[in-house]
């Protein structure tokens, strides 16, 4: 039996004998998109984790300069495609601020309903994929089964299941379907015991706890320094929610709590999202029961020409603080649109979070950070 290759070829360079460079992605079942992580390992411990992005870059900011404000609106759906309503929300608020458009109260409430439904759908997808990554495959199917119910309601509102194009400049696209309040209240009744079931099966499972507690810790100072927002920031203990800090679109009318974690490990980020779902259900109940009568959309010209100036609007998306910075020069097209995608910043923070942990923790951390590459690359 002849051996026609050298054993040495399989070992790393002699002068870096203990370091192994391992490539994770861009095609990988657990990176939640096209993300490439270049890991430098010392046996199982991660010395350096370098994310490489740009595989989904679609030059949205350049596109915005070439089309009108109304024409760009469907593109915002495709940014964070898992949580589309919140992107539309941010963009519409920024454009309305720029042009001085007032949104009627009924439209504001409908926007809130859509946004909270979307938050629940996005968090259910987070739970599903997190479970799948950790080999609790059944959680994946349970999460999607429940998500179907939420998406059905959004479907009845907008006609779409993923990229809704429901919010429009000046309001929303269509009025609440008759029976919307019944559907939403049924959903609330359906989901609350399901979330408790999820707690029993998954959250309180010893193996899951052992894999996510004290793993991938992001301290509050680090989080603030990077600009981490949303459930990741709240998982590290900083109570900062744009809906409370900078209320927009009638959020001040609703009563809800802002859950925070304690030490910023994977489990804290997960638990914050579960609690957020419960709080969203609270908001939904209040919104749907208090839906005011009125118009659903202020008339806005299709070739809107806002006066020259600039405006920044940010919303609390499912992933974090989604910001839109719009500059107008008085013409029909934006002069500059800057999209602040929270996942971009979280991927940047990944490098710091992952240092010192083991390979198996990469999956838990990536899952708990909950990035969507559409927002990272734009």
């Amino acid at each position, binding site marked *: 039996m002849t051996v026609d290759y050298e054993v040495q070829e399989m070992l790393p360079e002699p002068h870096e004998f203990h370091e192994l460079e391992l490539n994770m992605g861009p095609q990988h079942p657990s990176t939640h998109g096209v993300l490439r992580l270049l890991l430098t390992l010392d046996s199982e411990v991660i010395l350096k984790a370098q994310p490489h992005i740009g595989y989904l870059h679609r030059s949205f900011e350049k596109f915005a300069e070439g089309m009108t404000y109304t024409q760009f609106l469907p593109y915002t759906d495709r940014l964070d495609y898992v949580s589309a309503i919140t992107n539309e929300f941010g963009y519409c608020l920024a454009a309305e601020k720029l042009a001085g458009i007032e949104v009627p109260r009924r439209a504001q409430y409908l926007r809130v309903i859509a946004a909270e439904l979307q938050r629940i759908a996005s968090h259910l997808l987070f739970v599903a994929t997190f479970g799948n990554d950790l*080999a609790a495959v059944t959680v994946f199917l*349970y999460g999607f089964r429940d998500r179907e119910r939420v998406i059905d309601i959004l479907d009845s509102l907008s006609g779409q299941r993923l990229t809704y194009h429901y919010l429009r400049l000046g309001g929303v696209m269509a009025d609440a379907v008759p029976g919307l309040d019944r559907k939403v209240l049924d959903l609330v009744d359906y989901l609350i015991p399901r979330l408790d079931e999820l707690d029993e099966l998954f959250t309180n499972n010893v193996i899951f706890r052992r894999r996510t507690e004290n793993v991938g810790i992001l301290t509050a100072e680090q989080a603030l320094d990077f600009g981490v927002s949303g459930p990741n920031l709240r998982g590290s203990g900083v109570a900062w929610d744009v809906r409370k800090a900078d209320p927009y679109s009638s959020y001040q009318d609703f009563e809800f709590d802002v859950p925070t974690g304690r030490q910023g490990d994977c489990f804290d980020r997960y638990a914050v999202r579960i609690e957020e779902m419960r709080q969203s259900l609270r908001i939904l109940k209040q919104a749907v029961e208090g839906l005011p009568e009125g118009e659903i959309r202020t008339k806005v010209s299709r070739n809107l020409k806002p006066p020259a100036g600039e405006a920044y609007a940010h919303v609390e998306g499912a992933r974090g603080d989604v910001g839109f910075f719009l500059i107008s020069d008085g013409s029909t097209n934006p002069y500059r649109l800057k999209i602040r995608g929270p996942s971009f910043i979280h991927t940047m923070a990944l490098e710091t979070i992952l240092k010192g942990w083991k390979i198996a923790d990469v999956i838990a951390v990536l899952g708990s950070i909950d990035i969507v590459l559409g927002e990272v690359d734009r």
Partner: protein
Amino acid sequence: MTDLFQRLWGHFFGPKVSLVLAYLTDAVAILVFILLTVMFLIWLERKVAARFQNRLGPMRVGRPHGWLQSVADVLKLLLKEDVIPTKADRWVFTLAPIVVVVPAILIWVCIPFSRNLVAKDLNIGIFYIISLASLGVLGIIMGGWAANNKYTLIGGLRSAAQMISYEIPLVLSVVAVVVLAGTMDMNGLVARQAPYRWFVFWVPVGPLAFLIYLTAAVAETNRVPFDLPEAESELVSGFHTEYSGMKFGFFFLAEFTNMFAVSAIATTLFLGGWLGPGNLGPLWFLIKTYAIVFFIMWLRWTLPRVRGDQLMKLAWKVLLPSSLVVLFLASVMVAVGFGGARG
């Protein structure tokens, strides 16, 4: 079982020839049984998984309930191109699946389906089984190594480490039962539990040994929550990445055969084997074995995966000391007069 076949062949041939033919028929019978069982188990796994996940599972291939799905899968595997990576070690690459499958099948020589339905009732039955079970690890290392891929190498080594670590508690819990029974003969072990004194009820050793055995067995067969070597969603895809076609099929076959074998051994050792009311030995044996198989599948579709270091910690810091304690307790029980060999 051998003498049954010997009598059958004796109608046509002389005594020596019919003995040899009887042995051959034994082997064929075991092989056929295993292949059919594995095909059934694959279908069962898919159905069980589906029902846990609120869906239906295979429904089309062989209405109703897709019972021909496994046949379709086997045909598919047979027809696939057999890819061997260019720089792989061809011989080791080809031998690895065989080294994994053969011990898994050889185990079945000793497992009693009823008092007479056992291929060869060796008087060192359980010892024979345990020795063979250790051989499978070699095949995994060979498979991980031969593909010339650093990821499969890491996967293969991790798998080997896991299997070796869990063998010790597995063996020790089995030894505890052997000490209680006073015999290594498989049929003897079953007889010791007649009529309803199953070893699992022999407190304190029985239930403890059963728990340890079951945990170690799930780890030995690389099933969730201990399926780190095969984890598709982890970094390294595992030792059988580069395999395709029937070679991969062999690894798959070995995994299910092992799972079934491990359940069968658990039944024989702890749940009274083929004992049960009436003359329906094989039926009781299959019912008990499938109960454990179902439990193992239940675990797979409910629990998340344990991390590598936690897995090792469990083996060396929890199971090993526990199994030593159980062995000690078993010896104490025999010393005070429960169990032990009797005449």
